[in-house]
């Protein structure tokens, strides 16, 4: 079994590299469609300004895209380098969507992205628009496959354990594909990316408007972002709700942690709007509760209870005790007993094998676990409630804030009242970083809330790592942090530089602040 240091460091490294990667992905997902919208207007109207908009926002897209690819390479290989046992144990299922992501999506996105940048002179208008569309489609399909893989970690359907090969194996590809968790998660994540990208365009356009430069360019960009952003943030909220609903159905522990629901209340359960969850005492200090709200949102009924943590722990204890028997049955099979009874015994119990494996941390032989060790394993089944509870509330609060910003921006720009409402420009500008915070918090809720499992109820995190040393992982982790941070600084420098330059960076001579060669050339 891997040492606790290796497990902790591997988790930290995965979190750092995934959170870094996810700084860049949302903008790629959303900005690619904004480029499609702008270029479509160009193709339909033939107005040059829309081509310039596509090119300029495309430049910022490119700066971001490069970092997305850089940090994405790590994600493709990290399961193998740091989570080798996970890769062996579930690769038969989990590897498929990852390979499909490459074959179906990432190939398309990456092959056409070069033509997006360099094909303007060599392609017809409609051809180039098609290329832009394929870049957007490719990046979004990438997210689809990654989230199908992720949904399977949350809710592993369509697979069963094979004692012969000591791993999970696929029993239904359709189940993997149509995992009930995957759909809402996919749309919620996409819409979150669209929201981030819209805020990005809205905020930077606001900056030009506040500076009173490139007015027609900025106002058009602002309008596109306001419309796209409003639609996106509405779907984020609706699909976030849907995501919460499906979570409530199949990931009861995560829902209970999000809501700090210690005891099963009489339905419909109340919603804790504020409070400090106290894991030790299993209560929420200073709680402010809104009656009925949570039961209605999470179960969409008045009489379905939301199972509380204490009750879930009792269920888990039963499953852990069953898991011990499952583990014993597996040992019997592995020792060479091929009798039908031995097989039948294991098949009867194997759904709880994962719970048995939870014990390995406390009782390496599993079957001889003492009541104290079982209790410790039961405590492990509940993730750390406080950060999940608060991450979720902050995320939702930010989502509602975005709704306010986009709705105001949309109404103001649609009524052509921007000149009289300068406040929305400042609001949009200062809101630029907020979607990224909301998105990272969402990742924390989904993935930290999955603990102690890498694959829910199948494979505990503490068994999933590679047989590498803590020094190996500490060194690579330090390297990742240093390298990524340096690159992030460079990226932000370029982003600020080009955002400040604005459309003048295209060198067309048509925009404000063009002190460069093009303007000089025109004067001399």
């Amino acid at each position, binding site marked *: 079994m891997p040492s606790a240091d290796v497990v902790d460091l591997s988790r930290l490294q995965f979190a750092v590299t995934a959170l870094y990667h996810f700084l860049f992905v949302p903008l790629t997902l959303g900005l690619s469609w904004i480029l499609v919208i702008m270029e479509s207007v160009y193709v339909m109207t033939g107005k040059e300004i829309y081509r310039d908009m596509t*090119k300029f926002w495309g430049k910022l897209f*490119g*700066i971001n*895209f*490069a970092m997305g*690819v*850089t940090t994405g*390479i*790590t994600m*493709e*290989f990290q*399961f*193998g*380098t740091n989570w*080798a046992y996970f*890769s*062996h144990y579930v*690769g*038969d*299922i989990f*590897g*498929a969507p*990852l*390979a*499909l992501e*490459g*074959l*179906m999506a*990432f*190939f*398309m996105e*990456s*092959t*056409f*992205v*070069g*033509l997006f940048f*360099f*094909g303007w002179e*060599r392609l017809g208008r409609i051809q180039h628009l098609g290329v832009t569309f394929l870049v957007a489609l490719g990046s979004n399909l990438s997210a689809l496959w990654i989230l199908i893989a992720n949904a399977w970690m949350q809710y592993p359907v369509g697979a069963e354990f*094979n004692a012969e*090969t*000591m*791993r999970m*194996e*696929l*029993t239904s590809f359709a189940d993997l594909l149509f995992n009930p968790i995957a759909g809402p998660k996919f749309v919620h994540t996409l819409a979150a990316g669209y929201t981030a990208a819209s805020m990005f365009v809205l905020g930077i356009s606001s900056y030009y408007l506040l500076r009173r430069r490139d007015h027609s360019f900025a106002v058009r960009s602002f309008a596109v972002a306001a419309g796209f952003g409003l639609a996106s943030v509405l779907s984020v909220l609706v699909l976030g709700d849907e995501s919460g609903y499906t979570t409530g159905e199949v990931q009861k522990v995560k829902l209970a942690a999000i809501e700090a629901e210690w005891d099963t209340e009489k339905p419909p359960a109340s919603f804790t709007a504020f409070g400090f969850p106290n894991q030790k005492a299993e209560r929420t200090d200073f709680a402010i509760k809104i009656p009925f709200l949570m039961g209605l949102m999470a179960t969409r009924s008045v009489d379905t209870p939301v199972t509380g943590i204490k009750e879930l722990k009792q269920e888990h204890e039963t499953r852990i005790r069953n898991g011990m028997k499952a583990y014993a049955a597996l040992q019997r099979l*592995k020792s060479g007993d091929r009798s039908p009874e031995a097989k039948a015994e294991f098949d009867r119990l194997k759904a709880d094998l994962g719970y048995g494996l939870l014990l390995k941390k406390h009782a390496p032989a599993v079957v001889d676990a003492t009541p104290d060790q079982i209790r410790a394993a039961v405590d492990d089944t509940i993730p750390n409630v406080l950060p999940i509870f608060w991450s979720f509330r902050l995320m939702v609060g930010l989502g509602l804030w975005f709704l306010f910003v986009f709705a105001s921006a949309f109404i103001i720009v649609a009524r052509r009242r921007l000149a009289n409402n300068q406040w929305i420009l400042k609001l949009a500008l200062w809101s630029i970083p907020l979607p990224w915070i909301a998105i990272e918090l969402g990742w924390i809720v989904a993935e930290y809330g999955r603990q102690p499992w890498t694959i829910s109820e199948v494979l505990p995190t503490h068994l999933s790592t*590679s*047989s590498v040393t803590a020094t*190996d992982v500490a060194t*690579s982790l330090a*390297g990742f942090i240093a*390298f990524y941070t340096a*690159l992030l600084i*460079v*990226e932000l420098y*370029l982003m600020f530089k080009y955002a400040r330059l604005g459309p003048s*960076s*295209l060198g067309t001579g048509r925009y404000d602040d063009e002190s460069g060669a093009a303007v000089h050339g025109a004067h001399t």
Partner: protein
Amino acid sequence: MIYVFDYATLKLIWWALVGLLLVGFAILDGFDLGVGILLPFVGRGDDERRVVLNSVGPTWEGNQVWFITAGGATFAAWPLVYATAFSGFYAALILTLFALFFRPVGFDYRSKVADPRWRNWWDWGLFIGGFVPALVFGVAFGNLLVGVPFHFDVDQRSFYTGSLVGLLNPFGLIAGIVSVAMLTMHGALYLQLRTEGAVQARAIRAARIAAVIFVAAFAAAGYWVATGLDGFQIVAMPSPDASFVPSAKTVERLPGAWLRNYSRHPWTVSAPLAAFGGTLMALIASALRRAVLAFVLSCIAVAGVVLTAGFALFPFIMPSSTDPASSLTVWDAVSSHRTLQVMFWAAVIFLPLILVYTSWVYRVMRGKVTVQHVKDGSHSLY
């Protein structure tokens, strides 16, 4: 579920498919890596370096996906290989990742700031991004032929007992030289095709030097395999149609085992012949200024090298030097019958599609990249 192919056949097909992805990677991303290695040397002055960069600029990103997808396909089809190789070669792989980081940002960021120090710095970053992966992939392949120290426990958890320094054994290093020299030659012949003038002249010279080193190192590696390096051979194993773990078979180590496939199936000798012959004829074509032909021949040579190693190893993928029974082969390192079949259909549908649109992109972007072209596009090109 209806199985079109039996399990054993699918296992063989997936060996071929992973091989195809690796060949695709070596040919397509191979010349990008080679161009990265050559960048600081064949491009003197900023304009020339931008010519070199933009010769691969619009297409390198798609080419790199061959590498990413080969990784993903290994995960899906050979999960034990993915798990064991990547965790075993931990330090080497992390080093490769860090080197690869320089490429996306290097291409996109380099020309966005005018400061010559900034640009020069990224140029060397792109050199590292070409050189280190080329070297590590070669060394890793070499070590597959040598055998890698690893074993499994009863839970199928893999343990690697070697070290980073252990990978740098003489045979591994020769394989590393083969890889770097081969891809440098390949990149140089690509530059001959896509550039003109001084850059092209330097690329032609570079191709010549790299080809000589490549052929010498490849011949040395072949001689070593034939005379000094012990191969591996399966003595007994369950039916190839069954699902089993690596330790269920018996493996022995013996001299000359890596040549067994060549004597048993003489057609496989075409791989090393393609490597040598392709290189020789590519050099002649290059000297005759037949750039297209030279590049095509170089592609054949690169494919020949990858296949030479693959044919020698088959059915092994990653032999274990410390516990030969733990060796990973096409029979026991694979996914389930169902997964192999699902992924087979995915490959059958998408690989041809990828080849079609990739060819289209190359056709659109064809032609020479010139200094004038780079100067005209100073705001839009890399």
